[in-house]
């Protein structure tokens, strides 16, 4: 049985201009101890997907799904109280901004032991001892003295370590890291990533790493899910995806990496992610896609199994019939009509 099963998950936010779909039909399975990378531009719905799983979608967001189960428990029908027993214990999450994610009014020690006392029922002394151990494990020097520190007295990197310590306190089966290194210095980034990977291996916990940095994900994830405008575009094993991307969007993302630039200029994807008002009828990427056809602009592709993973595209790059179908679906160029 898979640890996490998500089928057709959608998250909608009613706005004054209509309903905004932040997450649109996401399906995903995650095995125990697996590391999944979720990539996408800002606003692609990667964070909201995971917040939905945690039950943390901010008001007035609405979550719908065909299936949302964690460790055999159906998260759609679970009571709030039961769910609170899971969150923070079996599923934990760390966030982008470590310093604002910790409460400025309470000490590190208080915030760390709070989780232990709640979920593990530890008394003050045991929780304190365990907190020191945890801080040690995440590489915080002189952990005992740090217990009485406040978040503002520590650096961003140290605070992120505290957040990680808090998240792993109850040995979660799944840890979600939402852009854990975005707000940190480059040197610290590597340390935090190493720490996450080490902890993941030691504890054999599943790890979902959300990021918009392909480099970060290449080093950590075994499997990658690429999201765009709230939809899963492609999802496959990491090596495979880097070697031969199947979705034009993935290919464009990879081409935009600095190390892939040839003439000293960075490749970019023209255009922006569609918003509330300019959501295309067909494929959501079609306005920015180099291969878009009349067909892909009109008909939205479904998420389907492809080359050992999933894809949402009419013309996957590795499809042998691709060229022929592209030519057939492409309208006659405007020039020829004129002549």
């Amino acid at each position: 049985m898979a640890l996490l099963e998500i089928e057709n998950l959608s998250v909608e936010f009613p706005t004054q201009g209509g309903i905004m779909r932040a997450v649109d039909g996401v399906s995903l399975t995650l095995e125990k101890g697996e590391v999944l990378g979720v990539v996408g531009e800002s606003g692609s719905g990667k964070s909201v997907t995971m917040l939905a799983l945690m039950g943390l979608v901010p008001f007035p967001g609405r979550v719908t799904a065909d299936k949302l189960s964690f460790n055999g428990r159906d998260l759609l029908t679970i009571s709030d109280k039961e769910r609170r027993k899971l969150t923070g214990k079996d599923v934990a999450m760390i966030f982008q901004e470590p310093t604002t994610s910790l409460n400025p009014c309470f000490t590190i020690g208080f915030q760390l032991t709070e989780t232990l006392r709640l979920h593990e029922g530890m008394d003050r002394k045991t929780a304190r001892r365990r907190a020191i151990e945890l801080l040690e494990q995440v590489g915080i020097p002189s952990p005992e003295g740090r217990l009485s520190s406040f978040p503002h007295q520590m650096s961003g990197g140290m605070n992120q370590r505290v957040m990680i310590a808090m998240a792993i306190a109850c040995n979660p089966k799944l840890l979600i890291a939402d852009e854990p290194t975005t707000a940190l210095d480059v040197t610290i980034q590597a340390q935090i990533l190493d720490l996450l990977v080490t902890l993941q291996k030691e504890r054999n916990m599943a790890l979902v790493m959300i990021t918009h940095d392909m480099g970060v994900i290449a080093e950590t994830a075994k499997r990658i899910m690429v999201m765009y405008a709230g939809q899963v575009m492609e999802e496959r094993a990491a090596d495979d995806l880097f070697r031969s991307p199947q979705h034009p969007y993935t290919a464009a993302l990879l081409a935009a990496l600095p190390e892939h630039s040839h003439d000293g200029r960075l490749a970019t994807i023209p255009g922006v992610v569609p918003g509330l008002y300019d959501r295309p009828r067909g494929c959501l990427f079609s306005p920015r896609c180099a291969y878009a056809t009349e067909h892909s602009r009109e008909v939205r592709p479904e998420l389907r199994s492809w080359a050992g993973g999933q894809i949402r595209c009419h013309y996957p790059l590795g499809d042998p019939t691709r060229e022929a179908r592209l030519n057939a679906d492409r309208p006659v160029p405007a020039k020829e009509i004129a002549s």
Partner: protein
Amino acid sequence: MLRFILTRVSLVIPTFLGITMLAFFLIRLVPGDPIETLAGERGIDPQRLEQLRIEFGFDKPIIVQYGIYLARVLQGDLGKSMITQESVLTEFTALFPATIELAFCAIIFALALGLPAGMLAAIKRNSIFDHGVMGVSLAGYSMPIFWWGLILILLFSVQFDLTPVSGRIDVLYYIEPTTGFLLIDTLLSDEEGAFWSAVRHLILPTIVLGTVPLAVIARMTRSAMLEVLGEDYIRTAKAKGLSQFRIIALHALRNALIPVVTVIGLQVGVLFTGAILTETIFSWPGVGKWLIDAIFRRDYPVLQGGALLLGVVVMAVNLLVDLTYGLINPRIRHNR
């Protein structure tokens, strides 16, 4: 810590001088000579008037008068009331407990209702409850105190006969002032029913005086709470699986209290202003009523001394608020 207190106290000096000046010159701008007022409608013999003016020092240039006054104040002498010939300080200390008792009850009333109302309004934002609380508090904030007091008296005292109209306690009781606070003194005395009489007398003045602070605190708590509830650390608290109650009452409230505490400090000044009106409406024997009487009698020393003493109390409370600030907000504590 000590340095912080010393800096704060040194900042008080200009404020202190400012109050002495305002109190001194403003009352002299009010038409009416204190001695002529004292003499009443029958008038006074011009020779005697001149003599008295010299006696009170009113013949000297006004700047010189201020200098003499300030020199005396700095030596701790606030002067004597022109009417009662009693020392201003003695009168003030005798009356101040009544004002404190009323102001204290009013702020407790405002906090006890304002904090939960503001919190609930924030949690149930845009609900009927939220709109109701905000509407009512806007009305409360805009209400003239004297009108509100009279309406309450008409309704509860006259119409329903539930509460006494005025005073601090029934005339039946004689309570020996030990602390000056009637709620405590009545408990200490063995007069039966005196305590309840004191409580009953406090109800309406407390509501009247507490209405404005209540409205301010409710609105402030709501907006502070709304801001805090959107913070990242609240999301973290939820991600930890904490109960809704713990998140609100501990993680959110502690942060939301920071701006609220400042407002409470500022409300103390408003409270004393309100006390002047409230005490007049309810014939409450405190410093507010004493000051109003002093204005009508042009009793310069009482007005100057009273304003100065109240000013000092307000400054002291605000200093205290700044100190408690560090208790709630660790970021301030460590930045000193």
